[in-house]
């Protein structure tokens, strides 16, 4: 087990290096650069000499391999450099937004889990009844509706029905819990609903599979109460695939709420991603991709550990 975990840990480094290489090269394929965009504003008449000077200042005049070597050496020392657009240190740019994105991800996960597990279990227990059909409609609607669209509907509803709009500026929870929740509950609901739809489907099918297992029949034959059979034997085992889905969705939410963050004007990692692409802010974009890749790798690793803990049959060599 320990050897396996150590191997998994060591594999993180070549994976991240691969991500770094691909990201570095891919974003340079997109036409234009940060200098062109920054100085082609409304007048659009900045001299070529000034553009060249600026490129030299931020190192874009150097050969690509050299730019990569400089950057990767910084990454190895956990120094992601400075944003090419603002000149601010990358960690500062990310730190500002990370708390918000993390909170939305956590809240959306809570919403999703609170909806998905009871609904999924209920649908499995009442298979092919009207309850099952209703849960299916609810979850398939969630899968079909993009969360940003649901976000727009929520905003319009709040505006038209209640003449109220969530706050536009992020207030940390410890400064004002009310302000904080008033802003973040709506995106959490919009995202959490779609997220719950995936998890509900997974919970239902996992439960159906587990409920047909021999050990469930045995538990029932022993005269165990239905409640105990479900919670102690069925649910725990059915949770393995659900946990995977929830964890991967969670990692995705850290940087994946691109449009939803725009709709709710949330100053999160997703919006920062969009701005970094729009500005061709290579250093920031590279750091963000590394962050999301890191989040996925970490979640995967933790999942592997959790699998072993949840299911004693699983033993890694």
């Amino acid at each position, binding site marked *: 087990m320990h050897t396996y975990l150590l191997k998994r840990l060591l594999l993180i480094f070549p994976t991240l290096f691969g991500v770094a290489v691909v990201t570095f090269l891919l974003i340079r394929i997109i036409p234009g650069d940060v200098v062109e965009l920054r100085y082609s504003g*409304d007048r659009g008449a900045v001299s070529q000499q000034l553009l060249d000077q600026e490129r030299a200042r931020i190192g874009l005049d150097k050969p690509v391999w050299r730019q990569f070597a400089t950057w990767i050496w910084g990454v190895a020392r956990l120094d992601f450099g400075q944003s090419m657009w603002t000149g601010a240190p990358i960690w500062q740019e990310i730190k500002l937004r990370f708390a918000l994105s993390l909170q939305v991800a956590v809240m959306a996960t809570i919403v999703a889990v609170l909806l998905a597990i009871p609904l999924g279990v209920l649908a499995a227990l009442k298979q092919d009844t009207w309850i099952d059909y209703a849960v299916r409609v609810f979850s398939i609607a969630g899968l079909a509706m993009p969360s940003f669209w649901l976000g727009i509907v929520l905003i319009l509803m709040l505006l038209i029905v209640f003449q109220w709009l969530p706050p536009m500026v992020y207030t940390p929870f410890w400064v004002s819990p009310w302000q904080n929740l008033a802003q973040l509950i709506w995106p959490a609901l919009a995202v959490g609903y779609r997220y719950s739809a995936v998890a509900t489907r997974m919970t239902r099918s996992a439960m159906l599979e587990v409920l047909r297992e021999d050990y469930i029949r045995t538990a029932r034959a022993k005269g165990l109460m239905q409640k105990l059979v479900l919670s102690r034997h069925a649910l725990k085992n059915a949770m393995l695939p659900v946990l995977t889905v929830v964890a991967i969705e969670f990692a995705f939410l850290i940087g994946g709420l691109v449009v939803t963050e725009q709709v709710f004007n949330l*100053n999160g990692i997703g919006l920062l991603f969009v701005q970094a692409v729009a500005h061709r802010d290579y250093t920031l974009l590279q750091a963000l991709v590394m962050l999301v890749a890191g989040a996925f790798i970490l979640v995967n690793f933790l999942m592997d550990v959790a699998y072993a803990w949840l299911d004693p049959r699983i033993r890694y060599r």
Partner: protein
Amino acid sequence: MRRWRGPFIALLILALALPAWAQEKPRSGGELVFVVPSEPPSYDAHQEETFGVIHPMAPHYSTLLRVDPFDKTGTKPVGDLAESWTISKDGLVYTFKIRRDVKFHDGSELTSKDVKASYDKILSPPAGVKSLRASAYGSVKAVDTPDAHTVRFMLKWPESSLLLNLASPWNWIYKADILAKDPHWYEKNVMGTGPFKFVEHVRGSHWVGKKNPDYWDKGKPYLDSYRAIFISNSAAQVAAVRGERAMIQFRSFSPPERDSLVQALGPKIAVQESPWDCLNFVSMHHEKKPFDDKRVRRALSLALDRYEGSKALSRITLVKDVAGIIVPGTPYATPPQELEKLAGYGRDINVNRAEAKRLLKEAGVPEGFAFTFKNRGIPHPYEPLGIWLIDQWRQIGLNVKQEILEASAYHPMLKRGDFEVAMDFQCGFIVEPDLDLGRFPSTSDANYGKHKDTVIDDLYVRQARATDTEERKRILRTLEKRLLDDEAHVVYTLQWHRIIPHNSRVKGWTITPSHYLNNQLDTVWLTE
């Protein structure tokens, strides 16, 4: 009874008039919350191009002159740090008297040394420091300070645009001592003499300023503070105003956005509109056939039904007025009767299009001639304008394919000259012919169509140096005729139209043709 009637009526009128009068009297207090669709990359306006710097940051700074905040044309310079000025008879020396009671936000006194240091940085920046508008001051030989409260600008030749150039909203006055120690300091720090002091900037979120109690203009600013919220998504901007989370956005909304706000908020919203000192024009590559032929270029202009186009497009996007080379309603604008004499500006579109077809035929351009029109992928107003242009050109027998480019690919395309016909643009920060026409001399970096016209070059210099307003107007009309008609180097579309719907509590702010102007907020106040 009758003898009381007169005073009673007078009292009644006074009583009725009082609330209105009281309402228009500026009131102190409150926080102005506004939306900014862009964000400052750095804090140094001397080296930035985006209004994202001006809107949240201008309230922290003063300029030597400013554009009168109540002048709708945005062309009248008034003193900001300068309390008065004189111009020598030969127009070569401008002397400014600097106010004595101006303090920086750190409490130190502002003197002429600070003005000179700031202009030295703008005119001839030290190595490694950028100044984007240095070329606009080519006529300035030197800046000197005869005493602590006098600044002189010595010119190589008379320049009619100098005063307005010194009212540039970009030319913030910085502290000389700080610049001497570190010319990059202002890229990451804020410290000026403006009506508001800096409080905080949370990147991607907001910018806050609070009232400067030591502002030189006693009694101002009226607001206690302001908060600029950065919102890039236009639907979210509209929602912010509609949900009264923000009171105003100082750039512009589109006509449908304006209409939705008016419909939703009724009397709670006020709308100010103005011709905008921005314009899309069509550049035709003069080194590519058949656009090297002025008959073809003129035909492209003659095909456009600008008056009908204005009616249709002004309902859906940010364009409206049919205009010449200068923003309508401003001192050097083309009078409508003169405008109608230019190719493509006549009222009878059938006559214009018949002439266009004749010119194409004469130039040997066959019916159905195909070319590619390169446009920028921005919804307002590039895309609707592009569709309109294609339709207009189709009506003289041309077959146009549109290619839309994303912003970062669009500018390099123009610079490389990798186009036959492309959408081009001009956006000024003050309505001043020198600034608005600076891209048309042959030697300009932004002459993307690569025309070579020494007559235009000469006319541009002559209008810039003409000190008599009427003479300058005459030269400008000649330049306009050559640029848009005789040689048709470019094809002007429609003037942009600026639309600012704002919460009706916001008072003391006047729209101008430039979204870079009138952002110091010292005159702005809020009703109860």
